[in-house]
Structure formats: structure tokens, C-alpha cells
């Protein structure tokens, strides 16, 4: 956490300095009004997607990743032992490719797989692998290798391991794998996008190199292969000449480099040391990035903020207290004042970029300050211990909510925790309220609805068999219409019981210098975890190679 401490200690100073510099140097940008103007107009276009020129092959690209999230891979890059695999999607996708990938239009596209078929009402899945694919060590990617990978992944310590009730996994033929489950799972394929099972490692290379060497220089069948790997610092990849898709990747070299924070990333991009920055998440720096002439692409988030209320302990075991929080929370005002109307207020665990999005939830309690005051009066006052993960955005967000709730007479004490502190707080039976995110591209995957609402989850504030049942219905069915119905019903049930007010999903931004193009870099792809799953095999540069 000290890394984060240093980050936050410096972040304030950095932001102030940076903004001061940007303001001070406003003369230079305004003096060249043409370039500033063109940059601004280009940025406006970029939000909806840059018109990319014809792709060009060759060149290298340096990508910056934030040190406390995607830029940390302390346990290496073996899919089965990388405990931060969920955050390291870009590195993993580049090395291993993906069985399935998410496209710019939010659709699932087979990549190293070619097809899948549910059987037995979702209790079995047949996945067909692409023919003629080889790992970069020259061995064949076949069903046997896939089975070997699944077995390792199921034993992985990573929270990105598949959450299947696995009964058996077997190779049906050379290119088909059968997965048998104890209970139906209609989200199995969609869930692969946030799971380590989406990345296939070479069993032969693993056995030859041994686990320690393999995690440092893993072998996959992706568009790039590893040249050098300095853990959580720099990963250098080169083009895989035998990649299954002819003509891809366009880039000859791809380097991932860790950077301290959003401010240092801006400086490195301006200094010409990198061309892409993934997952910029400080709204107050957006103008600084745009004024620097960088292409800023807003990636649609699929995980809305939620105010989790512990319904198993006072004061939120009383429905009136929960209703008071709903009635005192004006999400639209926060979006207007803190996020410049750039985000969409939601009423459920789904978001516009994800599947099964529910815009209006039946019976969702609206903002009503008078009602909030009345409820607080009825309760004889309401005091709330409210906690979240420490970050500059969360801090301002929490203070806004505290001020808002104060108007209704709710006394709020804010607690900002590091990761370990946050988890310890959740382990206390009497925690009260937490600001978190809930949701995913497909609701049950990753930190989705099950994680925040299922009775058995340690991070849930709700213990309600009806909620569990609806979650299972949504996940269990292979029929999208049935799944949608279950999630709509669940959203309404959560609202009617005032279990947890939803706010809005906070977008992340992909940043690129001039002449860089790619899906998820200069176009939008829904986020499957926190950042957009950028497809580096399709990325290219037209200048400054």
C-alpha cells in the first residue's frame, strides 16, 4: 500500500503542478490556436471513434499501464499462477491471444476458438478450437492442451479463475473440448472474457521451462511473444510471425511499461516516451490530456457505483434507514457537478455498455429530500459509517455524498481504506455502508451482481433467498430472453427492498498520441473488467514509428 501512499502523496502535488503548468502554458496552446483547435475537435470526434486510415504494418508501440492496477504483475504472467490476471488483460491477450474476444460493437467473437454449443440446458458446453494454430514454441494448440490449461486454471489462486461447478472436462476430438458442469451456467462463455481460462499456455513449454521460468517468459499462441519481462516494470513483446491470422499483428514490437499514475503518464506521452495509455481514470485531468493534443477515447464502463448497505446489521437492517439513503442521494447532481455530465445515472447493476441493461427500474426510489428528512426523523436520527477504497476520485465522491446526506440529517463518518483495510472492514459483521462497484459486461462475471448481492459472498450486504434465486436464474439459463427477465426482476426486487442505491458507471479513457489506431485505443469497446480489452493485434501506427 505504500506504493499507493507515495502515489497519493505525490498525486495532489502533481495534479496541482500539472494544472498550473497547463494553465501557465495556456499561452503556448492559445498562441497556436490552429493546433489547439484541431486537437479539440479531434478529441470530440474521438469519443465516438476516430476515422482510422488504412492499417499499416511495422513499427513499435509503447503502452503505459498504471502501476497500482494493470501495470502490476508481481506474480508473473502464467495464466494459472498470475494472481492479477484480471487486471493484466492487455499483456495476457497479447501473449496468449483469446479463445473469445469482445468486439467494438459489444459482441462476443471467437478467436482461438471457432464455435461453442451449450447442451443439456447449459450443464455441458462444447468448445471447438481453431485448426492449424500453433504456440510460439512450435507445438500445436489442440484440445488436449486446452484441457491441460483448464485443469491448471481451476486450481489457480487467482480470483480470475473460472467460477464453474465443474464436473468433468475432456477432449472430444483433436479440436473439441467438452466441459460438464454440476449446474447450468449460461454465462460460461461470456464469463471467459474475465477469466484466465481464456488464455491458453503451451503445456510443452511449461514442462520444458519449469514453473518459475515459464511465469517470467510464458509461451502462448497470441499475436506477440515475450522478449523480456521485468516484473511490474516493463514487458517487451515482438511480433509472432506464425500467428494464426495472416497479416496480423501489424506491429513489430509492443512494449508495456508501468507508470506511477495518470499524471506521470501524461508527462511520458508528452515527452514522446510512449504512445498509448490505458485506463486513465482521473476526470479532472481530461482537459490536460486533450490540451496536449492526445486522442482521448471514452471506454464505456459496465460496472456502476453502488452504495452497499449491510442489511444484516443496524442501522440498515431497518428498511426505513435504507430508504432514507435512497431518498437523500441525488446521483444526477453528482454527475453534473463532479463529472461534468459525462456519465449516465443508472438504477441497477447493469450499465449501457453491458448486457441486459435496464434503463428504468420499476419501483426505484427517487431522490426526495423531504422524504429523507421525514424518515430520518422517524428513525430518531441516522448515523452512518461509510467506507471505500482510498483514491482521489472516491474521496471527492464520498465527500459529495456526505454533504448531500447531511441535508437530510444523516450524520456520515467517512473511512478511506487501502485494499487490505477495506477487506478487513468487510469481514466485520457490523459494517454499515460501503461505496463499491457492482456489475460486469455479463452481470454474474467478475465483480458482478453475485459478488455484491449473493448471500454466500463475503462482500455482500444482503442475505435474501429470493435474491439468490434470481441470480441463479439469470446465470443458469442459456436463453438470453430468460436471463434478461431474471435480471430485470432482480433489479426491481433490489429497488423495492431498498437494498442498495446505484449511481453511475465511471468510465475509463484510452489515450493515444497522433498516428496510433486500434480497437479499444481509438474506438470504444465495453470494459469487461475495469479497462477496455484493447485488441493489440489490430493496432497500428501511421507515423513516428
Amino acid at each position, binding site marked *: *500500500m*505504500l*506504493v*499507493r501512499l*507515495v*502515489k497519493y*502523496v*505525490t498525486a495532489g*502535488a*502533481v495534479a496541482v*503542478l*500539472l494544472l498550473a*503548468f497547463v494553465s501557465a502554458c495556456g499561452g503556448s496552446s492559445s498562441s497556436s490556436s490552429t493546433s489547439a483547435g484541431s486537437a479539440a475537435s479531434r478529441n470530440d470526434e474521438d469519443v465516438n471513434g476516430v476515422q482510422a486510415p488504412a492499417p499499416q504494418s511495422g513499427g513499435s508501440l509503447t503502452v503505459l499501464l498504471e*502501476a*497500482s492496477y494493470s501495470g*502490476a504483475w*508481481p*506474480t*508473473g504472467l502464467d495464466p494459472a499462477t498470475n*494472481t*492479477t490476471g*484480471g*487486471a493484466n488483460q492487455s499483456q495476457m491477450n497479447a501473449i496468449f491471444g483469446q479463445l473469445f474476444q469482445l468486439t467494438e460493437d459489444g459482441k462476443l467473437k471467437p478467436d482461438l476458438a471457432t464455435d461453442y454449443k451449450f447442451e443439456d440446458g447449459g450443464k455441458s458446453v462444447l468448445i471447438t478450437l481453431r485448426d492449424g494454430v500453433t504456440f510460439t514454441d512450435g507445438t500445436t494448440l489442440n484440445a488436449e492442451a486446452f484441457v491441460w490449461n483448464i485443469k491448471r486454471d481451476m486450481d489457480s*489462486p*487467482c*480470483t480470475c479463475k473460472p467460477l464453474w461447478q465443474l464436473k468433468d472436462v475432456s477432449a472430444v476430438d483433436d479440436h473439441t473440448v467438452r466441459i460438464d458442469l454440476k449446474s447450468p451456467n449460461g454465462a460460461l462463455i461470456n464469463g471467459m472474457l474475465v477469466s484466465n481460462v481464456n488464455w491458453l499456455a503451451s503445456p510443452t513449454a511449461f514442462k520444458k521451462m519449469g*514453473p*518459475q521460468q515459464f*511465469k517470467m517468459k510464458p509461451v502462448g499462441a497470441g499475436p506477440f511473444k515475450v522478449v523480456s519481462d*521485468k*516484473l*511490474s*516494470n*516493463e514487458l517487451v513483446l515482438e511480433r509472432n510471425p506464425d500467428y494464426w491470422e495472416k497479416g496480423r499483428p501489424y506491429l513489430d514490437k509492443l512494449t508495456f*511499461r*508501468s*507508470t*506511477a499514475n495518470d*499524471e*506521470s503518464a501524461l*508527462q*511520458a506521452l*508528452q*515527452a*514522446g*516516451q510512449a504512445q498509448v495509455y490505458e485506463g486513465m481514470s482521473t476526470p479532472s485531468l481530461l482537459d490536460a490530456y486533450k490540451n496536449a493534443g492526445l486522442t482521448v477515447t471514452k471506454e464505456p464502463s459496465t460496472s456502476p457505483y453502488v452504495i452497499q448497505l449491510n442489511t444484516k446489521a443496524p442501522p440498515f437492517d431497518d428498511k426505513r434507514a435504507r430508504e432514507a439513503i435512497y431518498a437523500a442521494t441525488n446521483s444526477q447532481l453528482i454527475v453534473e457537478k463532479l463529472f461534468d455530465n459525462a456519465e449516465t445515472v443508472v438504477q441497477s447493476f447493469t450499465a449501457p455498455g453491458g448486457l441486459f441493461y435496464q434503463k428504468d427500474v420499476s419501483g426505484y426510489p427517487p431522490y426526495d429530500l423531504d422524504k429523507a428528512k421525514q424518515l430520518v426523523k422517524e428513525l430518531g436520527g441516522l448515523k452512518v459509517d461509510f467506507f471505500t*477504497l482510498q483514491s482521489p476520485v472516491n474521496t471527492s465522491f464520498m465527500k459529495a455524498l456526505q454533504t448531500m446526506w447531511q441535508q437530510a440529517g444523516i450524520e456520515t463518518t467517512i473511512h478511506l481504506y*487501502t*485494499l*487490505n*483495510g*477495506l*477487506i*478487513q472492514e468487510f*469481514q466485520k459483521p457490523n459494517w454499515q455502508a460501503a461505496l463499491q462497484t457492482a456489475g460486469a459486461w455479463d452481470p454474474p462475471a467478475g*465483480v458482478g451482481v453475485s*459478488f455484491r448481492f449473493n448471500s454466500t*459472498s*463475503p*462482500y455482500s450486504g444482503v442475505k435474501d433467498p429470493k435474491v439468490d434465486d434470481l441470480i441463479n436464474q439469470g446465470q443458469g439459463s442459456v436463453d438470453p430472453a430468460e436471463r434478461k427477465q431474471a435480471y430485470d426482476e432482480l433489479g426491481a426486487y433490489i429497488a423495492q427492498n431498498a437494498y442498495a442505491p446505484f449511481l453511475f458507471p465511471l468510465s475509463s479513457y484510452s489515450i493515444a498520441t497522433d498516428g496510433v489506431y486500434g480497437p479499444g485505443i481509438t474506438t470504444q469497446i465495453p470494459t469487461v473488467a475495469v479497462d477496455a480489452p484493447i485488441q493489440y493485434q489490430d493496432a497500428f501506427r501511421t507515423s513516428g514509428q
Partner: protein
Amino acid sequence: MSTSVPQLRVPLAGRRSGRLTRAARAPLARFIGRRLLMVIPVLWGVSFFTFVAMNALPGSAAQSLLGPNATPQEVARFEAQLGLDQPFFERYWDWLTGVLHGDLGTSLASGASVSSILLDALPVTAELILVAIVVALLVAIPLALLAARRPNGIADRAGLFLSMVGLSIANYVLALVLVYIFAVKLRWLPAMGWTTPGEDLGQNLRCLVLPAVSIGLPLLCFYTRLLRADLLEQMQGEDYVVTARAKGAGPWRVLVHHALRNSTFGLITIVALNLGTLLGGAVIVEQIFQIPGVGRAMLSAIDNRDIPVVTGAVLVFAVIVVLANLVADILYSVLDPRIRYGDART
């Protein structure tokens, strides 16, 4: 800045030089031996308290590595895999016995040996700190001499201004200002990253400039002010200065050949004592410039609750500081042959 050297012994005059040398060598060796023996409890204490502190922090390596989505069951299983379910003293004893056999343990995160992690990172930090100190001294000494030559003159006032600025600005703020000017605006130097001298010496030096200046400028200012004050004290109150002047030595000669030599004792003490602070500064600067040194490895390890790496890194830092102080003490006798350590016959 008065010079105070521990356990100084000035030998009686009139001894023959050969005898003196032999007599002096043995006490010096004994002195070094005693100091090295004192290092053992110091290092044990450092390692033990680091181990205690890391264990007192909330969470564990398993929790940190698995992230916020892990269930308590998953964390417990991973803790068992990492051996963190063992009692504190058992884990510490295992680590300590390993260290006594030359094994600093294995990183809980990467599984790599701590020795190999530190061996990769140490040359980077050493180069950074060494360059910062050398450059700071090379600039500070002439500045202090100029300032002391004419107190309240132009050079003195300019030096005072520079020192005030340098001492007032935190090194991480200075780093950001330097990056903005020299990397972002002028594009002369890299804003981040590292190249080893073996890969490309020119690029290595380019990578080194901004971080070394960020660490070195406050040092430079500190050294300048201290040395100036000490030189003035020497010039104004010491008999040997009056004697030198009476013998017709010019002001620069008195300053450089006589006063500076005496003032160097204080400077050496400060440089040695300052090393701990300097290592602390390097931790922050390495993070800002993404330099893969010991500081960055340690911060990352603290973040991951990677106790063996943190303890190993702290141990290395402790060894460096202790040895630097020992070298400083030895340097006294090199600079002034009259000084001998622990000569019981005097």
C-alpha cells in the same frame, strides 16, 4: 560544524615512523573488527523489527496478491501455499537461519530468490545515489569556497538563494518540475524508464540526469551551506589559519589548502550520516521515474506484503548505511595521519 570523531587517539610525538605504522595498523584493524561486530546486533534488530512491522500491517501477501475479489477461503488457501499460516517466530527463524546460510529467502510474489531481485536492483540504486552524491559534492565544494572567500559577497548571496530554493523544494516536486521542463517541453531527457550502462551507456546517462538531480540538488544545497559555515569558522577562529597567513600564504591558499582540509571532516560525517535520508529519497524518486532500483522493489514488495523482499531490502539499506559510516571513520585517518583509532598505548 565542529568536527567530533569518536575514539580518536593522537599518538605521542617523537615515535619512529615504522613503529608508528605498525602500531597504527593493528588498532585500526581492531577498530574495524569491533565496528563490524557491532553491525551484527544492529542488522538483527533491523531485520526483526522489519519482520514485526510487516506482520503488524493489515492484510497479508495472499490478500494483497489476490486483490479485493478474493474470498476469505481463497485467501486462507493461498496463505497456506505461501507458508504464511505458520507461526510468526517459526517463519522468522526459518528466514534468519536462511540468511545465516547466505539465503535471503524467496519472494512471496514472484517466487524468485530475494538475492537475485536485490542483485538486479542494487546496481541501479547505487549508480543513482553515487552520481547524485558526486555531482552534489563537485558543485557544493567550489560554491562553498567562493561563498567563504567573500562572505556576503555576490557568490555568497547567490549560493544562499540557490540553497534556500533547493532546501525548500521537496525532491518529488523538483522531479516533476524537471520532467516538465527537460522531458515534456524540451524533450532533451527521458521522463521515465531506465537503460543499463551495458545496454547503452549514453542512454543510461540520459536516464540518470533528472533523477540524480532530483536527489542531488537538495544535497548540494545542504552541503554548500554546511561547508561554507565550517570554512568561515575555521578562517575566523583557528590558530593554524593565523599562522598560515603570518607565513604569507594567500587567502585562496589558506582557504583551499588549510581550512578546506579541516572542514572536510565534517563534510564526510554529514555525507555518511545523510546516506539513510538519501536512500529514502531514492525510494520516492525511483517510483516517479519508474527506475527499477532497490527502492522501487521495496515499495512494490511492501504493497504486496512480500516480507522476505522487504526485509532483504531493508537489510541491504542498513548494511550500506553502517558501512558508509565505517568508511567515513576510516577516512578520517587517511585525511589526517595524526588520527589513530583505539591505540591503547597513547
